[in-house]
């Protein structure tokens, strides 16, 4: 009846950085080993970890790589103090990892459209890997970013994704389609419907909340199911502090999310409008989320 403990650990597991990959001018992927007492973590696409940067801060990060040997990778965009200091770390430096937390995406029967906007790609990365491994699964991937240089995982995607299933758009048109992912979505909808045939379509998306909100409206009017991953301020990551709660359903983004379905998103007054800061005060979602 009650939730089971799913975290590999709730105490930061100290582990040295094994490697660092530069992804874009302001994003890197950091790899660490997350094997504890010989046990490998079990990570579902869309789950996140809390990353402790000793002496600085602890912040949530989606898991974007989960390797066979228990190594995991997460992709960090340099946006503030914590993320900036992560960018300044070197191989061998120790960080603390706990988790994984959250529900993750529920891979459903049917046709999947996976959408990542900006750093949001980090959250859907393992999902893309998964649908690609399931050879029978039909999917398309839409990657969006402000500009070409900011497109995440592009080389890997172009290698592993059949050209006809991969769509790229940039706000400034510096690569492939110009415009927002929502515009692209609208444009290719007939094509997706054709490819999906009689199958049910689900969109899996992560990106700025304003983008997710637009995708939700799009899904609602086209009778498409949505699974979207949200961000909220997090202290605990495991359901105690309550800062990540979205009203009025009392949904804890860390535990009941970060991935929410259309059914729930449609009920959430807060979605796209409010979040709580670290004091618990309700704040209008600012431009950071847009």
């Amino acid at each position, binding site marked *: 009846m009650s939730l089971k403990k799913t975290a590999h*650990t709730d105490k930061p597991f100290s582990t040295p950085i094994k490697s660092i990959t530069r992804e874009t001018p302001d994003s890197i992927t950091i790899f660490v080993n997350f094997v504890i007492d010989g046990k490998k973590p079990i990570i579902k696409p869309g789950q996140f970890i809390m990353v402790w940067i000793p002496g600085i801060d*602890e912040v949530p990060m989606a898991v974007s790589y989960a390797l066979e040997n228990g190594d995991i990778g997460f992709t960090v965009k340099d946006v503030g103090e914590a993320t900036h200091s992560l960018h300044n770390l070197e191989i061998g430096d120790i960080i603390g990892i706990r988790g994984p937390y959250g529900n993750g995406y529920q891979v459903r029967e049917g046709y999947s459209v996976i959408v990542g906007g900006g750093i949001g790609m980090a959250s859907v990365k393992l999902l893309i890997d998964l649908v690609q491994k399931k050879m029978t699964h039909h999917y398309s991937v839409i990657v969006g970013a402000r500009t070409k240089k900011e497109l995440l995982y592009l080389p890997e995607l172009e290698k592993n994704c059949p050209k006809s299933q991969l769509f790229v758009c940039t706000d400034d048109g510096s690569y492939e389609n110009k415009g927002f992912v929502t515009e692209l979505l609208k444009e290719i909808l007939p094509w997706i419907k054709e490819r999906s045939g009689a199958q049910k379509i689900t969109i899996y998306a992560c990106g700025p909340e304003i983008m997710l909100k637009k995708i939700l409206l799009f899904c609602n009017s086209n009778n498409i199911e949505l699974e979207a991953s949200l961000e909220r301020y997090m202290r605990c990551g495991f359901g*105690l502090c309550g800062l990540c709660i979205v009203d009025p359903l009392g949904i804890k983004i860390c535990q009941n999310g970060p991935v929410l379905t259309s059914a729930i998103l449609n009920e959430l007054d807060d979605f796209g409008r409010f979040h*709580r800061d670290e004091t618990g*005060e309700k704040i209008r979602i600012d431009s950071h989320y847009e």
Partner: protein
Amino acid sequence: MSIAGLRFKSPLILASGILGVSPSTMHILADYGMGGVTTKSIGPIKTNGYKNPSIIGLNNDTFLNAVGLANPGISAFEHEISEIKTKERLVVIVSVFGRSPQEFANVAYLAEQAGADAIEMNISCPHDDVSTIGVDPNLTYKYVNTVRKRISCPLFVKLTPNVTDITKIGQSAEKAGADALVAINTVSALAIDIHTKRPILSHGIGGLSGKAIKPIGIKHVYTLFKSVSIPIIGCGGIFAYEDVIEYFFAGASAVQLGSCLYYGYDIITKIHDNLFRYMETHEYNTISELTGLAHTHENEG
């Protein structure tokens, strides 16, 4: 069940600092079986609290936190109190703190005005200055008495276990006009990461909650029961209905649930339903019949 004249539809109350402040969450908790909710501790002004890591898990359902009384401040919080109050038959307890007796009293007063059914004074957070109050019987008297004079709703005082003799503090609070005691707040503790050689929490020392502290909480409720006549609300390490009953037998009239929310909202219903099944099976009609039963055998064996 009733405490200080407040009727609770269930003796389970949300502990302060857990799931914080969202009104809709408080309402949901009531639906899952809570008879009352305590808000996170609210102070006179917005406070950011300590940086992360501020809450971590240790092994075996035990947690360490030093949030630093982060809160939006009473003025931003007033309308949330009114909103929480819209739920029928849910007792709303607002936890308050301040840097002086007057500040405490002001926040308490504003919270009462906003609709709080009861005020809980947090004089016990181990990783904050307020802890200097709750370890001193005289300061406790002064602070509690000042708040008492300012508000007319029931006043609860939450005690820290990090004292030589909790009964002295409890008695001071009682004398100063507290209507009930809450025991216990977290136990002062520290976890050091041996790889980085640092305390893990940004604040260093924090408060231990969860399973590890249950025998400590039970002990404090047990000794308080012998020394005060106001009701005691037990708190610390409750994860199952058996723990609730243990607190009742030790001397509690109600309990607060905190860390067990790690297991989601469902655990409330589970504890609630099992508790009422127990009462039925054993033919108890009210919680008060259970309170303090472990004291019956005092001077035997």
